[in-house]
């Protein structure tokens, strides 16, 4: 069993990613509208993986990632950023603050599932 936190301001994207996440064996999706909402969800749930958008109101993905990496309780949670095409600068900034991987929009469900599984396995292996 694992919990995957989806951080996305667009309800359409959030629902779509949530559908994909629910197809990962044993995974549950927890949704957040923005970075602040995500931090609240991190406090009240044990999160195994974060899927985050970059551009969001209130608190964007970059700020969220740097806060997560700066907190000893969350610093090892794998993070996948969801970026639009051509957003190389967003990607670069996300990796600079500690993102592990990125996935471009429009999301290919199989690609997302494969990547999430890979990171989940890796973090399960390293925490043993």
């Amino acid at each position, binding site marked *: 069993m694992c919990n995957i936190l989806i951080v996305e301001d*667009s*309800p*359409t*994207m959030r*629902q*779509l990613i949530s*559908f*994909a996440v629910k*197809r990962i064996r044993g995974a549950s999706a927890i949704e957040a509208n923005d970075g602040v909402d995500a931090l609240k969800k991190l406090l009240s749930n044990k999160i195994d993986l974060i899927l985050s958008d970059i551009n969001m109101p209130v608190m964007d993905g970059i700020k969220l990632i740097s806060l997560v990496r700066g907190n000893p309780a969350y610093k090892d949670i794998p993070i996948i950023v969801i970026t*639009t*095409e*051509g957003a190389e600068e967003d990607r670069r900034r996300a990796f600079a603050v500690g993102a592990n991987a990125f996935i*471009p*929009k*429009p*999301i290919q*469900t*199989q690609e997302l599932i494969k990547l999430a599984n890979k990171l989940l396995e890796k973090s399960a292996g390293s925490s043993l």
Partner: protein
Amino acid sequence: MEKENSNFKKADEFLQMFKRGEEFTKALLKDNEKLRYNIVQLEEQLQRAGNEERIKLFEERIAQLEQELSSYHERFREVEAENRDFALKYLEVEEENNNLANLYVASYQLHSTLDFSEVLRVVLEIVINLIGAREFTIFLIDEKTDNLLPVAAEGLETSSVPRVRIGQGTIGTVAREGESFFSENITEAKEVNLNEPIVCIPLKIKDHIIGVISIYTLLTQKAGFTNIDYELFNLLAGHAATAIYSSRLYTQSERKLTTLQSFLDLLKEKTVR
């Protein structure tokens, strides 16, 4: 002398007898040898017969095993083919699942609000995230002027998009005829040409056309349209139209209600005085 003679005779007889005996022995030995030879030959024959019998048995067993092996090969090939079929089926089911999820999300989101600007935002999100368009405009028909007015755009300023007369150019024709337009080389368009969209989808409520979605460029990773894209275009044509139409009516009626309410309040105030 006579005695001597008889002795010679006896010796001669003995010699004769001895000679015969020798000959007889020789003959016996020869026969013996012949018989031995026969025995050896018979033994060889017997052994050969046994070997042949065994070889025959071995050959039969080999043939049987070969047959079994080829039937196992056959079965293996069958199972392999079945596996390939299952793998293909699995991929198809997976794709179908994704497609259904996309369609479900699109229609769910379109009908999740009655706020006009929210509905427009959902349409933009579907076209960006589910179809993979980079630059596009949503036009709605202004019934008073018979013009298509840009109401939302992605990748370009809505205000920079000129209005289009119904019947004029590709966009205007789609608005008049109600048939979707797909350009021959959808992936070749790299820059916005407002007069040459690559895709135009009419927004229709039954036969009543209320607007057009006009796409100019696609995201680079989008290699072309698949079945699901056409399904989404169909869904947008119908569901986006009803969602836009009903939210606009709702927003208008809300506005009217507020106006009426303030009139009523004003009247009440006057009558009280």
